[in-house]
């Protein structure tokens, strides 16, 4: 796992209150509530990742500095305005974070019918980035495998077409 110089960031979900520098800002940013369902998916993914703080007022806001894919759970119940966790809205309201968002992966439950993974649709609409993948609850082994392989290809293609200076 990568860590920041101050050692405050790791894949298990600790966060930094100052902007992450470009060497350590990971390509996966995620949110997970106290249930920890999405965190478990990220742990199995085994890629460097940073967690959006659950309590930003206490833990500090997260600001990233390199392009990233967002992994986010849907708060189910069929209300578009509340489908995206408010901490994720706060994170994306920062124009720096929003500008570096390249895609969204969403956790949900098909029991919510048309609103399955609604958070991904809302973020994709608002930020004009692709919805890359959807999975249910903790995700299956197949989901973990597909996302790991898929992200590898996605970043390879992305880095091949984006000059480094555009990351700033």
């Amino acid at each position, binding site marked *: 796992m990568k860590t920041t110089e101050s050692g405050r960031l790791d894949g298990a979900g600790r966060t930094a209150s100052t902007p992450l520098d470009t060497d350590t800002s990971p390509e996966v940013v995620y949110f997970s509530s106290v249930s920890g369902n999405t965190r478990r998916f990220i742990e199995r993914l085994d890629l460097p990742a940073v967690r959006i703080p659950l309590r930003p007022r206490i833990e500090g806001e997260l600001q990233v500095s390199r392009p990233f894919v967002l992994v986010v759970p849907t708060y189910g119940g069929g209300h578009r305005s509340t489908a995206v966790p408010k901490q994720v809205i706060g994170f994306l309201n920062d124009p720096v974070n929003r500008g570096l968002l390249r895609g969204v992966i969403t956790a949900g439950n098909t*029991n919510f019918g048309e609103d399955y993974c609604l958070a991904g649709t809302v973020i994709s609409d*608002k930020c004009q980035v692709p919805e890359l993948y959807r999975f249910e609850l903790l995700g299956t082994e197949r989901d973990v495998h597909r996302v790991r392989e898929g992200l590898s290809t996605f970043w390879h293609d992305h880095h091949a077409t984006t000059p480094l200076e555009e990351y700033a």
Partner: protein
Amino acid sequence: MSLSPEAPVAEHLLRDSVTPPSYRIDPAARLRPINWNRVTDEKDLEVWNRLTANFWLPEKVPLSNDIPAWQRMSQEERTLTMRVFTGLTMLDTVQATVGEISQIQDARTEHEEAVYTNIAFMQAVHARSYSSVFSTLTSTREIDEAYAWAVGNDQLQERCKKVLHHYYGDDPLKRKVASTLLSSLLLYAGFYLPLHFSVHATLTNTADMIRLILRDKAVHGYYSGYKFQRGLETRSREEQEEIRVFTYELLEELYELELDYSGALYEPLGLMEDVAVFVRYNANKALMNLGYPARFPAEETEVNPEILAALSPGADENHDFFSGSGSSYVIGKGEDTTDSDWAF
């Protein structure tokens, strides 16, 4: 006598107080009313709000629009529908009157106690809703026959009694496992049928009602599973392992029973293979709610795409950008949301 704003609160009184379910173990303790202004687990409030926002009643669903479709169905299909729905009613009755209520005594917070009362009521609404379908579509005589079938069906009785045994047992975590498996595994062979009919444009209003039930079940399963995991964290390694083994064993027993019970119902219509896949898919989701890995491999849980689309139109491969050619991913249409916080 009025208190001045500075008067100290008798904190020891609050600290030593208990909620009403504790009367059974300590009748002398002072009782505390529920205080929603002091929430200690934010999930309790979040789930309460979701449950109340999702509230519905069967009277809101225009079930009578299904009468023409019902009249076109074969006698075999009608009998199957009656039996499947009576079976669902049985399970929701167990859940409303025992399954949810029995978890109140194990609550970790006073708000959790309140959430179970809400879930129990909603399960009673679900049990009530199948009766609405019956009274809309069929006759008293046919209804009575279906209920007699349910009471006389050994497998249906055994499915219920297997979970009831744990509801009345002495381990709070086994209660939660049994409850989650009922809500997220046992019901789904029944839910399959209205989804199957809706694919063929039959009983579509009934299917809409089932979708409302499915939405509720997702929240119920999530909440029980969440509280299960919080409880499990407090147990020793040995106890955790015992519960894990118990969970997979109970799942296996219920799954075998399910194949027997549903096999007898669905095999005559040639649907059982499809139903079994749907049950395995939902068994895996039940385990995930409890925080455990899937029991069945991906190849055995590939739900018929038509059924999956009837459940959730967004669950198709269009949302797997990674597996496609790379040109077919979905970008949203840029509609506005109404929440002002969400204005960039």
